[in-house]
């Protein structure tokens, strides 16, 4: 066991998988000698050489497009998008080419596209994106977002070994703030499985990514205040969603709120609310509530972004409302 950060866990997963399988390679901007804008790929080029750690021009469509082609030849490309916001520049390649490939002609396109997402670090409107709902409506894609170092490593290994295109969002706020003891030996965290981070009976909080922590904080407050026990579900996989775990918890507690850092309208909370409605309506003792960022681009200035982001206080407020409902 060794205490490592969320970022280091991602880096280890890349080292492990490239060592385990010579078909795995990394491609992106400044991923080579520089080791990536956040140093996630640091050292890879020394160990695996520049044939397997490819520095590209500033061309996201070429990064993803060439990865698709290489995957057709049996390779396992891992694309780095320097900031996940720039995934908008290869949106077509992902939604039209990669996502439909297997459905159209049975052609697997096992690529991984990873990059730093999320706010809370003063990145402003173009370096803080939570892109999940851009892709939630595209069958053929998978999406994950780890909230712990353990999952960061296990989900990336699972994504690289998966036979479908997987978008892997790493929350940059967690890169160096989250540390954990990780097992030395090889493990994966299977795609499509949520984790129950806290058992509870009075309400369910569904969340993922960096929001897990304010949710845990709010849950503790709630229990201290009034003994209300919140169950917290960390989605981990956003596509496919672990509907079983969500619905089971909803049936148990009868009260559900969804917390995401992404803006409200069109956010993933809608899909979860709809699912719970369809599969647990009779067990509901209150509305499925949402705690999210408001419907604006992500503002740069600290006072604005602090106000914009969901936090433990806002989550606790909503939770009290729901418990009292």
């Amino acid at each position, binding site marked *: 066991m060794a205490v490592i950060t969320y970022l280091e866990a991602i880096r280890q997963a890349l080292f492990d998988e490239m060592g385990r399988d010579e078909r795995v390679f990394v491609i992106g901007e400044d991923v080579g000698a520089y080791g990536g804008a956040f140093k996630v790929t640091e050292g890879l080029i020394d160990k695996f050489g520049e044939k397997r750690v490819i520095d590209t021009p500033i061309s*996201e469509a*070429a990064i993803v497009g060439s990865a698709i082609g290489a995957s057709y*030849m049996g390779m396992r490309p891992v694309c780095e998008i320097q900031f996940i916001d720039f995934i908008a520049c290869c949106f077509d390649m992902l939604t039209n080419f990669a996502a439909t490939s297997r459905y159209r*002609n049975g052609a697997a396109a096992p690529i991984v596209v990873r990059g730093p997402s999320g706010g809370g670090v003063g990145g402003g409107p173009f370096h803080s994106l939570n892109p999940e709902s851009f892709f939630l409506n595209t069958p053929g894609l998978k999406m994950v977002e780890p909230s712990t170092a353990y999952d960061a490593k296990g989900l990336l290994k699972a994504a690289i070994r*998966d036979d479908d295109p997987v978008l892997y969002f790493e929350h940059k706020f967690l890169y160096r703030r989250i540390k954990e003891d990780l097992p030395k030996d090889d493990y994966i965290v299977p795609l499509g499985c949520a984790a129950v981070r806290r058992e509870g009976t009075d309400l369910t909080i569904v969340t993922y990514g960096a929001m897990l922590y304010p949710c845990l904080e709010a849950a503790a407050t709630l229990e201290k205040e009034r003994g209300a026990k919140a169950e917290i579900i960390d989605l981990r996989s956003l596509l496919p969603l672990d509907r079983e775990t969500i619905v089971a918890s909803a049936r148990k507690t009868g009260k559900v709120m969804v917390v995401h850092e992404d803006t409200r309208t069109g956010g993933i909370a809608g899909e979860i609310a709809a699912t719970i409605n369809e599969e647990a309506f009779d067990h509901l003792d209150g509305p499925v509530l949402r705690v999210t960022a408001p419907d604006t681009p992500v503002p740069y200035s600290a006072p604005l972004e602090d106000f914009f982001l969901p936090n433990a206080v806002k989550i606790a407020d909503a939770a009290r409302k729901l418990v009292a409902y």
Partner: protein
Amino acid sequence: MKASEALSSNQLLEMYYFARLARDVEERLVILFRQSQVIGGLYRSLGQEGESVATAYALERQDAVLPLIRNMGALMTVGVRPLEIFRQYMAKGTSNSRGRDLNIHIVHLPEPDADEPVIVGPISMLGDSIPVAAGIAMGAGMRGKPRVAMAWIGDGATSTGAFHEGMNFAAVQKIPLVVVAEDNKYAYSTPIAKQMAITRIDERASSYGIPHELVDGNDMLAVYDVAKRMVDNARAGGGAQLIGVDTMRMQGHAQHDDARYVPKAVLDAWAAKDPLERFRKALIEERHTASEQDFADIDRMTKEYAAKEADLAVDEPMPDPSTVARGVYAGDDFAVPRVELVASPFASKGSSA
């Protein structure tokens, strides 16, 4: 010596066979279209079959092709059985896409070390096939089974961002990619003058430092000579190459388009330069390597073959609706019919493709 001079008379006839077959398959498709057996767009390559065949003919068996909707000739050249095309156009359940995707959108991915062509049909978003082609050639090399990738692209599609990013990436990485840029004078209704401010389409390569040549696309021998040279360069480590093809789209964008925006005089001038006719003349009158009879035999052969294949496809079943949700993700073992590859009647006598 020109590469084409090294081709046997048998190979030359084989090239004609593929071009003729492409034309006859399309003419069958027109009949089926009129009978509403083909729904959706039907795209003719009339007048472009020559360049499509002559470029693909320069490839080796294990190479990769990424054709566009007008590259029926390339598909015939790498050995795609016409039946596969009819199945696709008629949206049959037996087709490679099982009726899920259009026309020539077929994919054939051989085992990593197999000496079979890699075939990756386009998606509709123009330009996307260029980065993918670069990745195929790059990935094949990484797997230790080098394959040259040849991708065809229309004048209009060279205006897409994906084309630019793919070309530049291939140039920097010295990837064995040969791009065939087809200047057929129009992109749908848009004349080339509204598409680009250059007059030679091969100059589309000059921003990337990619070697490029322009060739008369209706002269199959000239096209083959340039293509062979560039494919050899790419294979020898010369990196990405671009062939600019000067040709003409002799019909509308698709069957629904009467192309009234194309001046009749222009069409007439190009009609006189029909690539199959010119090739026939060249072999009979200049090279004296073939007889009228040889061509007459091929014409009959391809016409009958196309008709037979079409008839076979007509009777095949449409897809089973209950399968619609299968095969979106790995794991539900939904079988996909492999694209059937066939050798030409000339192959036995030794062909290069």
